[in-house]
């Protein structure tokens, strides 16, 4: 029984590490690869949960995670980046060191919080819940420390990975909810993509601060 949890913790831990990796990448292509790695790890974690807990519906979730977020979205984003010719630009708002320190603090916060609120018989799952919460917070952090629209999309998708992980660990989320979440994320991705091309067409850059200049925002 302990092995089951050890492996699921290992996979969740790998996801957290990829979250950190997302934070310090310099090039967009590397960011997308790290994201693909995170999604594939998520698919593995969900598949492991499906196999070990005998919940076959979770295999579908794992399949969606792998095909959509592990393959389709990264490939699509790679092609977008190639078409826009922006593979070197990763404009950061704060430095890598500071972002990593904040990420560490968020992980500690997630641990402290989950240890306090999740007590009792379900406490086996709480490590995974803490890791998932940390991944969600780091995805959010990624959205706000990067200026580039593509990296913001990746941050958003990374948050969603954390949510799926939490849902798998919490044993509560039915497949319908799962599918609808995945679908809504897909829609959001389309919106983001259209948005990115529009920005590009108009401003010749996808630095979102270009939008701010249009509305008179002072940096």
């Amino acid at each position: 029984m302990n092995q089951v949890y050890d492996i699921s913790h290992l996979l969740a831990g790998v996801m957290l590490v990829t979250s950190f990796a997302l934070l310090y990448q310099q090039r967009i292509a590397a960011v997308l690869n790290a994201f693909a790695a995170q999604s594939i790890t998520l698919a593995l974690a969900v598949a492991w949960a499906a196999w070990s807990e005998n919940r076959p519906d979770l295999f579908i979730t794992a399949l969606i995670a792998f095909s959509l977020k592990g393959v389709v979205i990264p490939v699509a984003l790679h092609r977008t980046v190639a078409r826009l010719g922006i593979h070197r630009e990763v404009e950061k708002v704060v430095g890598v060191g500071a972002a990593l320190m904040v990420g560490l603090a968020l992980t500690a916060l997630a641990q402290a919080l989950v240890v306090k609120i999740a007590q009792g018989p379900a406490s086996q799952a709480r490590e995974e819940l803490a890791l998932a919460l940390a991944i969600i917070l780091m995805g959010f952090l990624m959205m706000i420390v990067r200026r580039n629209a593509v990296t913001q999309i990746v941050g958003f998708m990374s948050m969603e990975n954390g949510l799926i992980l939490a849902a798998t660990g919490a044993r509560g989320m039915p497949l319908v909810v799962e599918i609808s979440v995945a679908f809504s994320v897909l829609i959001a991705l389309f919106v983001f993509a259209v948005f990115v091309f529009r920005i590009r067409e108009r401003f010749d850059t996808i630095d979102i601060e270009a939008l701010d200049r249009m509305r008179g925002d002072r940096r």
Partner: protein
Amino acid sequence: MPELYVSGAALGALAVAAAVATLVRGPALAFVYPLSALAALALGAVDLHVLLGGGELVAWLPIGLPTIGVHLRLDSLSAFFGIVINGGILAASIYGIGFDRAKELTPRVEPLFPLFAAAMNLVLIADDAYAFLFSWELMSLTSWALVVARHTDPESRRASYLYLIMAAIGTSALLFAFGGLAGPAGGYGFDTIRAHPPQSLVAALVLAAALVGCGSKGGLIPLHAWLPLAHPAAPSHVSALMSGVMTKVAVYGFVRIAFDLLGPPSWWWALPPIVLGAVTAVLGLLYAVLDRDLKRVLAYSTIENIGVIFVALGLALAFRANGQHEGAAVAMAAALLHVLNHSWFKSLLFLGAGAVLHATGRRDLDGLGGLIHRMPRTAAFFLVGALAASALPPLNGFVSEWLLFQAVIAGQTLPQAALHFAAPAIGAMLALAAALAAACFVRVYGTAFLGRPRSVEAARAHDVPLAQQIAMGGLAILCILGGLLGSVLAAVIAPVLRVLVGADLSSAGSGPTPLSLVAFDPARSIYDAPVIALFVAIASITTLFVVHRLSARRTRRGPAWDCGFPDPSPATQYTASSFAQPLRRVYGAVVFAARETVVMPPPGDNRPAQFSVVLTDYVWRALYAAPGRAVLKLSERLNALQFLSIRRYLVLMFAALVILLSIAAVMI
């Protein structure tokens, strides 16, 4: 239960009248008033039946929130207030029947009038918090719409804006009050709340919220600022309803919460209503004495009367908390009878003011005068109302004030030092208020109805149509009868007293005559209105007779003595301002920082001399203007938040999330 159907049909008729009135235009709108009068008559009859016959009517309607519906209940307290309200609606409707069909009906007023009437009735019979708050808000909104009916006048617009803000504040306070009453279990039915009264701290918060919610609707200082602007801005028969009746719904709300839902009181609950009420009574009249607008003076006088009622309610709470049921009954009887009496005489006075406004087109006292010759009937009815409002025996205002002073004097027996020492101070303030009320109404009546007309319009005034005279006359008769038959009224409200304070006037009927009102003990506190009325009548007739005997037989008419100035200008008369000058000098300097300036041009200069008075309203400056400025300043600062970049919004959300998570991590 036929009563239930009668009530339902009457309320339905009001709603249908409102709906139909939105569809028709012009003279056809006149149907609203007879219909409202009939509905008010039917509702009042049901209320009277329930009050006299005991028992209660209960109904549940499957409308509104799913599974909860609307609980309605008409008990003796609701029935008493229902009589007060439907009496006012009846008088205002009869007054409305007299409107000129061609000129005075507008689609802005007539559809809302029956809706307003129905909403006030609904507040009284609501038996759960949802129904109560819904009908309370309906009442606020319909009355607001009636205030804004004459929206072309910037004063009206300002008044309605302020009213809307204050109504929103009041309703949100009531929302908190009911939230506190319902408790964590969320039982919003009044029977559930009654079964589980809140703990003492929550109860204190509920009481404070109820005081804010109901006090703002009733005009308790410092929440009064909207009232003297909004009540006069509405059409006069609506002013009569708002001032005479809607403020009573506010009192009902407070009584329902403090005496019925909140459980057994603590003694210190009594202090806020007593202190606020006494301050309101005195300040309200000081405002009234200094104001020059006829309807605004009446609105300020309403504020004073609400203060008096709240003092009586506070005393009733104090007596009840100490187990002195007899005192509680006297104080509560004073409050309830004052509610009834004030609704009669204030409706009468506002209808009279409406008649004056209709006849002259003016509300400023300094433009009126001499109306007693031109509108003799209105003048007579207004005189009755003014005497009642000044609490002179044998009219009805005196009965309730007398009971209140009995309760104040008995306040000496309260064990707590704070109440023990407060009682005489409150008594002194109420006495001051009573004296100021008399001065105020002498001033109003003297400038508006006596003397010579100060304007062309006043000189051309004529009396109002018969229906409006009937409305005023009926109320005047009620004021006189209510004064003479105070003991009968006290007996009628006995069931309400038993429900609210667990006792009634125990020594009722032990006085020397069948109609004498006995507060505590027939040996020391009796008010015998018929005997006093008889004495007053005999003394006046005798005096009249003797004077006529001793003087020359024939009436001679001659010019009035002109103080040696043979100037026929009516401007040489006392004006409302000059009559108020002594009081302004005595009180105004402290309370309103009154400053008088006289500009006297030097000899040879033919400019007129000028005299001006500047009054400062401290309450407005500290509690309305200052927070208003603060809100503006804050919103200017926060305005920057509307122009951030997407990433900065995300930072804000992220920061909020992290802070909340950290708090959760530390606190739990």
